[in-house]
Each structure stands twice: as structure tokens, then as C-alpha cells.
């Protein structure tokens, strides 16, 4: 009788469910996981170190690339830190725009999550449904910033520019008939806010579609209920934040507990789970999408009624408008100074945290009074979640590991930084 041994399985980094570059070394007893050892660092780009060599404003673009499915939220954490050090007041309208785009980003992120999570569990149609909606939201990104993903839209002092009055239109082409283009342009006739409003009206229906496919699906429930259970106590100890923590039944949301920007004026609820399993976290995130939709609606109605400036008038920090830089001597000097050496930030250290779609996204910034950060530390929520992989996966089967990776909503841009 030969000796029976466990064997190790190398899961990733080249694996359909690795969500980028996750490498898991699994010690398995048949199909059952004895130990799961995540290896990180394959997407390390040295963002924190790079940030020490660049003027403050030039680092905003790096923040987009941290968690590359919730771009503007990363920027938000970073610019908030700078604003706190500078004690800079930002215009009201910019706050609303930021909140609106934070929530749009949350929907973007959760759509990506539900698509990949369902794809990992085998329901591939969800993936394409989610991408249909992401396309509209990407168009919003493109309309305000010029790029679909890495927007660099938030600036210390507000946002780069005001919301456009017109949406880009689809053109007729070899592949797109005139009729098709007209159909796609139908809801893009008004301003960006009109298009966003149209989306928020459609979106609850789409979520209902997702729920029809998954929520009461027996197979989906069998695959997620009771998988990767994390108790409330353990969730605290493991440093969980965001939907992972709320799924375990803790009502903790920085938007409510430490409101930043204008979240204290918004009317929304925080969904919490009870069992702390994959299914609860699924329900929490689905409900978060509905709540985000509510917040976006409130922002739209405020923004429609209150035009105004969107970038601080303090031109030592925020760039002057183009006309000012061309016509006004002082404006020209500000422009020149800002785009060559940037601005200096008073000496000191600051920690800011925002409720990122994945959890608490924190930025710890030390300034020595120069025009670039002395040290920038990013607290990525995904890192803490991934650290719990061993605990969540042990005793489950190989297929459940895939479901757990999905429920953790891991993105390696932020974990490896």
C-alpha cells in the first residue's frame, strides 16, 4: 500500500480565474483544500516609490492604475490627502461631481465584480450583461475626462473641468448603419447629466435582470451559501473593510461614519449581511449598486439646479482657466509655476480614507514641505482581503476557491501596487 500524500497545485498566475496575476499554491487532499498560500508581487510597479519623485499633481494618474476597475475612487483618496494638508476648500459643485463619480465608479466596480464572480462560478452570460452597462458608464468617464478608464479627473481643489453640455455621438460607419447609430445616440442628445439620468432610470431594471439570473438560482445558491464564511469577530481581526465587512454583519461605511464631501447630505442605506458567506456578500453588493444609483440620482438633481465653478480659485494649487493663462500676467505665472515645479505642500503627515468600492482605501501622506510627497503609503483594501484567503478556503473544495476569489473582489493593481 503506497503512502497517501497531499499534493500541491499551482493555481495561476496563468489561470482563467486568477483575476490577473494571482498565484495560489494550494495544498490539496483530493479536491479539498488543506492550505492556500497566495503569492503576490507579480504586478508590482512601485507606485509608492514613483510618487516620491513626481510633483503632487503628476501622481494622480498613477492612482487610476492602482485599482484599475475603480479609477476615480483611488484618485479621490489621494487628492483628499493633499487637500487636507493644504487645508484647501473646494467648491460645492465639485464635491457633488466627485460624489456622483464616486458612485458611478462604485457601480462600475461592482458590475465588473458580478461579471467575473459569476463567470468564475460558471454563469458566463452575467459577464456580458455587466459589460453592456459598463459601456455606458465608461462613456461618462470619456465624456468628462477624455479617457474611458484612467481619467485623472479629480484635482486638488476640485475636478479638472465641468461636466460637458453634450455627449459624444456615435458616427455611421462601415460596421454601424445609420439606423444603428441613431438608435445608440437616442439617449445621448442632451447633456452628460441627462444621459446619466437616463442610465439611472434604466439601471434598476438591469439589476433586476441580474437577480433573476442569480439570486434564486439553485445552483448559484449551492455554490455560494455557506462558502467562505467569516464571522464578525474574525472580519474585524483580519482587517476587512467594505462589502466584505458588511457581508459579515457589521454596519460600517465611511460614507456614513466619517462622511467626506457631501455624503452627509445624501439619503442612502447601508446593506449588511448576516452569515458572512459568499451569498451574503453577493446580496450586499447588489444592494449597494441600487443605493449608489439612488445617490447618483440625488447628485444629478442638485447639479442640474446649481451651476458654478468646479475648481478652486486658489491658483497657487489649482490651474487657472485657459483664458486667464493667456490674457492675464498673473494667470500666466500661475500656469507656468504649476506646470513646471507644481506646488508645495506644508510639512506634516496626514491619513485620509474613503469608502472605496472594495473597502477602505486609505492614503497616508508625509510631506517635508517640498513639491512632491516625502512618502506615500496606500492602504489597499484588497490586500487585507487576500490575506484571509487561507482561512476562507481551508476545508473547501477547489471549485470554492474560485468562488472565494470572486467574492473577495481582488484586483492586483492595488494589492501589488
Amino acid at each position, binding site marked *: 500500500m503506497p503512502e497517501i500524500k497531499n499534493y500541491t497545485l499551482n493555481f495561476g498566475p496563468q489561470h482563467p480565474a486568477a483575476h490577473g496575476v494571482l498565484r495560489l499554491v494550494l495544498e490539496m487532499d483530493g*479536491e479539498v483544500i488543506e492550505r492556500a498560500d497566495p503569492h503576490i508581487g507579480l504586478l508590482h510597479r512601485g507606485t509608492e516609490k514613483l510618487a516620491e519623485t513626481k510633483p503632487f499633481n503628476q501622481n494622480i494618474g498613477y492612482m487610476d492604475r492602482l485599482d484599475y476597475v475603480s479609477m476615480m475612487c483611488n484618485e479621490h483618496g489621494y487628492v483628499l490627502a493633499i487637500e487636507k494638508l493644504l487645508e484647501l476648500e473646494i467648491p460645492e459643485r465639485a464635491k457633488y461631481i466627485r460624489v456622483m463619480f464616486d458612485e458611478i465608479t462604485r457601480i462600475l466596480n461592482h458590475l465588473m465584480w458580478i461579471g467575473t464572480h459569476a463567470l468564475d462560478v*460558471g454563469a458566463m*452570460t452575467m459577464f456580458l450583461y455587466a459589460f453592456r452597462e459598463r459601456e455606458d458608464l465608461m462613456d461618462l468617464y470619456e465624456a468628462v475626462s477624455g479617457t474611458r478608464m484612467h481619467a485623472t479627473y479629480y484635482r486638488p481643489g476640485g475636478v479638472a473641468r465641468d461636466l460637458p453640455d453634450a455627449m459624444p455621438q456615435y458616427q455611421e460607419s462601415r460596421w454601424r448603419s445609420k439606423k444603428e447609430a441613431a438608435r445608440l445616440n437616442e439617449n445621448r442628445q442632451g447633456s452628460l447629466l441627462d444621459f446619466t439620468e437616463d442610465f439611472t432610470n434604466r439601471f434598476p431594471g438591469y439589476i433586476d435582470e441580474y437577480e433573476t439570473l442569480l439570486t434564486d438560482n439553485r445552483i448559484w445558491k449551492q455554490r455560494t451559501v455557506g462558502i467562505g464564511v467569516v464571522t464578525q469577530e474574525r472580519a474585524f481581526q483580519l482587517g476587512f473593510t467594505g462589502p466584505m465587512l458588511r457581508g459579515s454583519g457589521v454596519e460600517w461605511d465611511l460614507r456614513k461614519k466619517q462622511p467626506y464631501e457631501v455624503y452627509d447630505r445624501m439619503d442612502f442605506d447601508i446593506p449588511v449581511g448576516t452569515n458572512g458567506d459568499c451569498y451574503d456578500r453577493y446580496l450586499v453588493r447588489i444592494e449597494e449598486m441600487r443605493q449608489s444609483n439612488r445617490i447618483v440620482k440625488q447628485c444629478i438633481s442638485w447639479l442640474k439646479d446649481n451651476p458654478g465653478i468646479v475648481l478652486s480659485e486658489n491658483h497657487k494649487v489649482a490651474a487657472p482657466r485657459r483664458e486667464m493663462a493667456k490674457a492675464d500676467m498673473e494667470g500666466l505665472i500661475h500656469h507656468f509655476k504649476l506646470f513646471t515645479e507644481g506646488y508645495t505642500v506644508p510639512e506634516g503627515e496626514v491619513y485620509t480614507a474613503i469608502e472605496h468600492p472594495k473597502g477602505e482605501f486609505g492614503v497616508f501622506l508625509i510631506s517635508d514641505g517640498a513639491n512632491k510627497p516625502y512618502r506615500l503609503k496606500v492602504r489597499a483594501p484588497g490586500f487585507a482581503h487576500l490575506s484571509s484567503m487561507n482561512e476562507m478556503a481551508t476545508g473547501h473544495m477547489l471549485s470554492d476557491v474560485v468562488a472565494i476569489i470572486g467574492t473577495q473582489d481582488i484586483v492586483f493593481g492595488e494589492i501589488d501596487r
Partner: protein
Amino acid sequence: MTDIVTNLWLSLPDGIQFTSYTLLKVFIILVPLFIVVAYYTLAERKVIGYMQNRIGPNRVGPKGLFQPFADMFKLMFKEIIIPTKSNRYLFIVAPILTFAPSMAAWAVMPFTDTLVFADINAGLLYILAMTSLGVYGVIIAGWASNSKYALLGAMRSAAQIVAYEIAMGFSLVGVLMAAGSLNLGDIVNSQAGGIYHWFILPLFPLFMVYLISGVAETNRAPFDVAEGESEIVAGFHVEYSGMTFAVFFLAEYANMILIAMLASLMFFGGWLSPLPSLMGDNIVWLFLKTGFFMLLFLWFRATFPRYRYDQIMRLGWKVLIPVTIVWLVVEGFLVYFKVGPWFN
């Protein structure tokens, strides 16, 4: 001209005449089968595409109609990679071992009353035997690949097949109790007399079990744990490339068509017309019914998440098999008391 050909034919020895005649018949079945398989893959991509808000392949040929041939040529010209430290003979034999039975099973398939290649009395048994042979190819492929992912896939497949062969076998027992014959042609003919005489009505639970285990037998979603795209990458055929992979693929699709056609033969009256007083029996009915079940396979794939391996086993042993056993008893009483339009 025809005289010359006829004379030439008649002058051949009996053995050669018989062999070439048989070969011709084999080709008449297999060539259309290959074409259907090829276009089934295209249909899958198109149908699932439309279900998922996209349009599927439309570049090769008009409306993408030549896509299967493009795929075929691509696979033919790709290198067959044999992994180091694999068992190379088993590695090559495995796809053939899956492919051959899935083709051989078509030998007893009746298309109409008279159009059948081998009208044998144990047709159903023969098909059961052939379809269960195919799994050896999967197991051997997983073993010979020298890959942990492939081995896991093979293990899953082996365990799954044991459970679902039994469930499927039991549901077919119900059919042969109702028809009183193992000959597929006789099974269809005993359902004659319109839609109320089809076995789907008295044997509905068995039909459901058959359909579910049919999907499981062919390793299709939501039972595709042996392939398990997102878990074990491609399962048993993770190391296969080029033609060796294509052969697995062909076998899988041929099996799906086989299961679909068997479902329409055994439960839906095959080529029999649903309303014989209005429309006559025709081979078209068989193709329509088969096409519907083929569509179901695709529909399932676009709809359901994947089962976990142990959940599949539970479904097989604890749900499907008890259901069949209970219904066999019920059916026994139905047959004994000659209920219905079916058993009198």
C-alpha cells in the same frame, strides 16, 4: 453508361461488393454528421452570442458561415504538442478512444421506419454500451497528460459517469418497459397515434432524469466539471492541441447530437407526426425535435452556473436515481393495469 457501371459492379466479388456497400452507407451517415457537428459549433457561438447581447462570429464568409471550416483548418495545421513525461501512446490513443464510440453509436440510429444502418434488436443496449465507453478516453487522457489539472478533470469525470450512467440506464429501463423492445425503431413505432401516445406523458419524470443525465454525460454546462474552465482550466484536455483536441471536440458534439436525437426518439415519437390526421410522419419531424433538444444544450450553457463536483454527485445519487426507481414502480403498475392510450 449505366449498364457498364452496373456490370462492373456486379462483376466484383461478393465480399468487395458488401464491404464497399457498407462503407458507402457509413459515409452517408457520418459525412452529414460531421457537417452538422461543424455547424452546431457555429450555431452554439451564434445562439449564445445573441443570448448574451453580442453577435458571434461574422467575419469568415457570408454572415460567418464558413467559420467552422476556418476553425477546422486552423486546428489541422496546429502542432500536436506531446508533454514531456507523458505517456505518449496513451496520450494519442485517448482522443481516438473517445471519438470512435461516439461515432459507432450512430450505427443503430433509425432515421425513419426503413432508414437505418443496422437494425439490431439490442439497439438501446448497444448505444448505452458505446456512450459509456467514451469516458475511458477522458480518463486515459487525464492520466496520460502528466498534468495535475488534467488528472483532477479525469477523476471528476470518472466519478460523475458512474452516478449518471446508472440514472440514465434506469430511465431507459422505463422506456423499454413501455415499448416492450430494445429496438429503437420498435420503440418509436409503439408511440404511434399522435401526440397523446408519446412516452413523454407517462414517463415525464424519467424524461427529465434522462435529459439531465444526458447533459451530464456529455460534460456540458452546468455539469462541465471535467472541463471546468474557471477551476481546472480545461480539465482532461488541458494538454491537448491541434487535431487531438479537435477529436475530443468532435466527439463531444457528436454525443450531444446523439443524446438529443435519442431523446426525441424515445420520448417524443421520433419521426412520428404529432397530429397524424393532419400531417404525415416524416424524417423532418425527427430533425425538428432533435434540433430543439440541441438548442436546449446551448440554452443551458448560457443560463446556468456550474455545479460543484460533490453537488453533482449528490444530485445524481440522491435525487435522480431515487426518482427513477420510484417511477419505475409506478410505471410497473401502469403497465400491469394497462392504463391509457400507452399501455393497452
